[in-house]
């Protein structure tokens, strides 16, 4: 009898069911890789202490620090105290917890430290077919390698530490089929902003998205990570892309990827993972990539995005819409282009990998950022930082007048003191434009690294195609 065709998600899910779900209880799902950071783990380690439990599989657990850590070199390497006391305490607590529970920590000065979602793939730890969790919603990033990866809360962090398992109801599946080539100056960030605009910020709720089609197959790994990263911004549990030769070429030789005979065995298993012909998704959406233009947000959620040459919509009947525009200080019907900008942030787990920095540097080379504007460049990891320095990108940013920092989440969420001042406009390559996300009263416009760099040069929202 022919096996029922399965989706990539179905296969990964099924292979990790310790106990299948029933009417009375959710599935017990096995977790292959648990990434831990300083902000969402202290209370989970406290739970283990309260219950007298240990970490079941320390070798499947890796901790790093990224959210509240400083990006100023003096505070990371120079021995200057971390400016925010409570952040310094959180860093010390993670160090103590990892030491006490035997969990490997890529600490503040470690050469492989970085944003948790940048380092997992970079180290070769994130692999096709694995289940990956982290106490962070952008864990969806790791789905770019064909891993089932999703964010969890702190109580669940405790569950995984203690049992290496989670109780989960099986989500539904949503195929986002993307066809056609991206035009010059249009990036994976623009594609995902356009997708979220289409799906809505809750359109993916209860679902795991699989991004499919020739456009997706043509993306490199950095671009795939940008796409999967923002799945949560459409409300989805996770985003997945089938592993292929691009994935394998990316992983091969990475320090924590399988080596030698184990690599060959893994490859054989990974090749079984892509969705079978004829497999059914609970729903499907079609997107024409060729029609996507550089996108930018104008409001206070990532679904409020328009092509950069477009006008801010009018919804006079919707008080929430009015409130969002009032917060942003923008007018319905107005163009977004040429909106003055105070700050540009190039960073975050969405867009701070090497190719993102290269793209921005392409725009900035030989140019200066606008007078009065400040630009912060925060590489996604220390490895990205060193690779960028090896090809001279740091000089491009510094010569243009931008700041070049140590890696971390930084101005993506403004926990470490890197914030945008009240009322100021920031063009940011991060993933959330929520009220106050980059600092109380900050006004965030989400865009690609190209658009961010072009806007930095002009001091106004700028279509990058004018400068390429």
């Amino acid at each position, binding site marked *: 009898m022919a096996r029922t065709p399965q989706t990539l998600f179905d296969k990964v899910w099924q292979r990790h069911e*310790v*106990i299948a779900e029933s*009417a*009375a*209880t*959710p599935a*017990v799902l*096995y977790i292959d890789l648990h990434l831990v950071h300083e*902000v*969402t783990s*202290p*209370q989970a380690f*406290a*739970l283990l202490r309260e*219950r007298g*439990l240990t970490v*079941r599989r320390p070798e499947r657990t890796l901790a790093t620090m990224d*959210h*509240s850590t400083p990006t100023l070199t003096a505070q990371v390497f120079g021995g200057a105290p971390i400016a*925010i006391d*409570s*952040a310094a*305490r*959180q860093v010390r*607590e993670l160090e103590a917890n990892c030491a006490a529970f035997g969990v490997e920590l890529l600490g503040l000065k470690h050469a492989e430290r970085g944003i948790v979602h940048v380092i997992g793939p970079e180290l070769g730890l994130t692999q096709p077919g694995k289940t990956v969790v982290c*106490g*962070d*919603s952008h864990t969806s990033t790791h789905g770019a390698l064909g891993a089932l990866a999703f*964010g*969890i*809360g702190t*109580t*669940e962090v405790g*569950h995984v530490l*203690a*049992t*290496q*398992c989670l*109780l989960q*109801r099986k*989500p539904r599946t949503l195929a986002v089929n993307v066809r056609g080539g991206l035009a010059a100056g249009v990036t994976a960030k623009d594609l995902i902003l356009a997708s979220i605009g289409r799906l809505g*910020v*809750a359109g993916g*709720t*209860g679902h795991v998205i699989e991004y499919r089609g020739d456009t997706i197959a043509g993306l490199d790994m950095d671009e795939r990570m940008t796409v999967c990263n923002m799945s949560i911004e459409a*409300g989805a*549990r996770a985003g997945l892309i089938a592993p292929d030769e691009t994935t394998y070429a990316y992983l091969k030789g990475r320090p924590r990827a399988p080596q030698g005979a184990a690599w060959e065995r893994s490859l054989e298993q990974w090749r079984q993972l892509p969705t079978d012909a004829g497999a059914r998704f609970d729903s499907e959406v079609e997107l024409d990539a060729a029609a996507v233009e550089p996108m930018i947000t104008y409001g206070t*959620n990532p679904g409020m995005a328009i092509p950069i040459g477009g006008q801010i919509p009018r919804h006079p009947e919707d*008080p*929430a819409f009015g*409130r969002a525009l009032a917060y942003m200080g923008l007018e319905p019907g107005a163009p977004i282009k040429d909106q003055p900008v105070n700050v540009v942030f190039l960073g975050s787990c969405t867009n701070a990998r090497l190719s993102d920095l290269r793209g921005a540097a392409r725009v900035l080379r030989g140019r200066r950022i606008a007078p009065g504007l400040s630009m912060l460049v925060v590489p996604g990891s220390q490895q990205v930082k060193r690779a960028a320095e090896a090809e001279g990108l740091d000089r491009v940013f510094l010569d243009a007048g931008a700041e070049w920092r140590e890696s971390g989440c930084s101005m993506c*969420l*403004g*926990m470490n003191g890197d914030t945008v001042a009240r009322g100021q406009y920031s063009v940011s390559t991060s993933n*959330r434009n*929520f*009220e*106050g996300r980059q600092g*109380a*009263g900050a006004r965030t416009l989400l865009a690609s690294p190209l658009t961010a760099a072009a806007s930095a040069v002009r001091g106004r929202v700028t279509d990058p195609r004018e400068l390429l």
Partner: protein
Amino acid sequence: MAALTTLTSRTVVMPAANIDTDQIIPARFLTTTTRAGLGAQLFADWRYDPSGVPRPEFVLNRPEAQGCRILIAGDNFGCGSSREHAPWALLDYGIRAVISTRFADIFASNALKNGLLPVVVPAATNQWLLERPGTELTLDVEAGTLLRPDGVAVSFPLEPFARHCLLAGVDELGFLLGQRSAIDRFERRA
């Protein structure tokens, strides 16, 4: 986790859709290493002006909102960041149930693990509730019903295992720890 069987309270309403967890508890308060005391910072940037003075017009600062344990919200409540600090802050403030037409997945999961009840109701019911702040409602966890003062009962879905945990006041960890031999077997097979 304290058991929750029934809850009777007046409501406080926040009609905005897509209230994200950065609003519920802004990131700058996440450097804490405990769960306690976050209620003071709940909705901080809506509740207080930049100098820290309560904004009298914000719903939670009005006298009639004091003591309300049920929050009625617009669609897609709790979207964004996975921070469990969001339900911790709501609970610490005194909210025990949130009613909306939809919750973000991670928020709903985090809420249930802490005894905060996410109640999904049809759009018409939510609209009725949003238009009537201060209505006294009774939520019956066992029956899965919301009882309006006009006698109308609306049923709401609740994942059976989460219901069991809420009613018994137990958390999931005990259950998971009880699966040790199945997990051992799985690891040997893998």
